């Protein structure tokens, strides 16, 4: 895997978080956090529970609006990012507490990821008219490719609510991939998985990064996986940034070690 990583061309900064502060009532979820994400890299965010990792992701795609700071996306400054803006700008994400459309099938869930790419209007769809139908079929083909890639052909028609956790996480990734994002935000994609499932998921993430060139921002608790697949790591603790470096440097950072030892008590 190290070889694949070294062969990729890591580019310029595509996403720059500047002095982000976010508070809920009295709780400072994020205090003056700055870091950047470069094109094609796998950028991990780690930290103990409640460190502010998910909040950071939510700020990036506009689910939360920070009280201070700005999100700069390919040079464009957003003081108020919104989920819609982020989606249109090519940012896709998965959620820590899987947020799939429970009543819908795997296929339909992933199809919703194509929403922004649909051009036919509601009237054409209502009468199931030529262009709408052709478009639907074209998108369907793309979605089938994603289903093959994630190896979930056997559950295509199953309502996602009935799937085991590990497979739901995969469908969540599939829906995000269907958007053909340039930046993919993953919030603990391997939580609750066994070793085998984790290996599959790591492979999917690396393949997406390598073959499609997608920039990935990843939150993950499994240190083995994080050290293995990420290029650079941001470490948060109680809403503060306590480390930002390559995996090897982060591993040796005394402050990081202390935070993790403290958290395990």
């Amino acid at each position, binding site marked *: 895997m190290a070889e694949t990583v070294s062969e990729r061309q890591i580019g310029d900064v595509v996403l720059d978080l500047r002095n982000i502060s976010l508070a809920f009532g009295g709780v400072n979820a994020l205090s003056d956090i700055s870091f950047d994400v470069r094109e094609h890299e796998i950028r991990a965010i780690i930290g103990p529970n409640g460190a502010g990792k998910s909040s950071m992701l939510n700020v990036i*795609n506009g*689910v939360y609006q920070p009280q201070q700071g700005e999100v700069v996306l390919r040079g464009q400054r957003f003081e108020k990012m*919104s*989920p*819609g803006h*982020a*989606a*249109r700008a090519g940012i*896709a*994400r998965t*959620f820590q507490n899987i*947020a*799939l*459309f*429970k*009543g*819908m099938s795997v296929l*339909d869930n992933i*199809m*919703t*990821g*194509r*929403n*922004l790419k*649909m051009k*036919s209007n*509601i009237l054409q*769809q*209502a009468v*199931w008219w030529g262009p*709408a139908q052709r*478009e*639907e079929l074209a998108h369907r083909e793309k979605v089938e490719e994603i289903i093959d890639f994630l190896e979930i052909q056997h559950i295509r028609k199953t309502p996602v609510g009935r799937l085991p956790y590990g497979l739901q996480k995969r469908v969540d990734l599939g*829906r*995000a991939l269907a*958007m053909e994002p340039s930046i993919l935000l993953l919030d603990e994609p391997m939580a609750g998985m066994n070793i085998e499932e984790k290996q599959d998921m790591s492979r999917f993430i690396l393949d997406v990064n390598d073959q499609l060139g997608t920039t990935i921002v990843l939150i993950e608790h499994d240190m083995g996986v994080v050290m293995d697949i990420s290029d650079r790591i941001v470490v948060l603790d109680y809403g503060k940034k306590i480390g930002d470096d390559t995996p090897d440097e982060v591993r040796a950072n005394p402050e990081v070690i202390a935070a993790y030892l403290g958290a395990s008590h």
Partner: protein
Amino acid sequence: MGFFLETLIGGLMAGMLYSLVALGFVLIYKASGVFNFAQGAMVLFAALAMARFAEWIPGWLGFENQVLANILAFAVAAAVMFVVAWLIERLVLRHLVNQEGATLLMVTLGIAYLLEGIGQSLFGDNIYSIDVGMPKDPVLVLEGMFPGGLLINKEDFIAALIAAALVAALSLFFQKTATGRALRAVADDHQAAQSIGIPLARIWVIVWFVAGIAALVAGIIWGSKLGVQFSLATVALRALPVVILGGLTSVPGAIIGGLIIGVGEKLSEVYIGPLVGGGIEIWFAYMLALVFLLFRPQGLFGEKIIDRV
């Protein structure tokens, strides 16, 4: 036996209309989390628009063809309901995202009064008629199978067919089209839907418009039978127990709940009514809803309501 079947069929036909109005409730509740008390007012408003435009348009354009007048009036009334949906999203929903259920409920009560008030000042407050050429005479069917046959009300029969066709068309639309999929996505999870770029505002306009069209069709059917008057708003509120019975979040629940209430009303009126002195049709549905609220608050098909702690 023949009489029982007549009553049953009468109930099913009346129930189909409740289903249609209940569908409006369910769609709005699923997509925007609002329990829409204004549904009845929307029926009145739409029926008023239909009745008055059918009266005015021939005068404005100088023709006398009733069919053409009705078609044009329907188109204009549908457009009016679109404007209503758009205004409600713009002026109200947009500013109330993530508010408490109780707040939203009060807001829809406000919308109901506004629609009733504005409707009457725009279109007048008399009793108006809608004449879409519904046959008024009953017809005998299945005379070979039952002595004396079954007496069916043609008007109710056609009304039920129209309502059923509209419900079926809407269900297909939700299942088979991209917009339908987006609607279901929003109904399941707002945040995830927004994160894949589905615009909530647009979805809300569509949903309120669809509910508006359901209200228009129900308004035309009831209006042509009862006349367009203030009481139409309360007739539509009879669909309220339907959604409690069927479950606020279930489309099939709205349909089946409507049929159950329709049948229940008619059967109870005929068979229990004489024992308690009649008038049971008025309160039967509410009674049934109350029983459900006590013993199965999520309704027949709704999702179980779990309080988050």
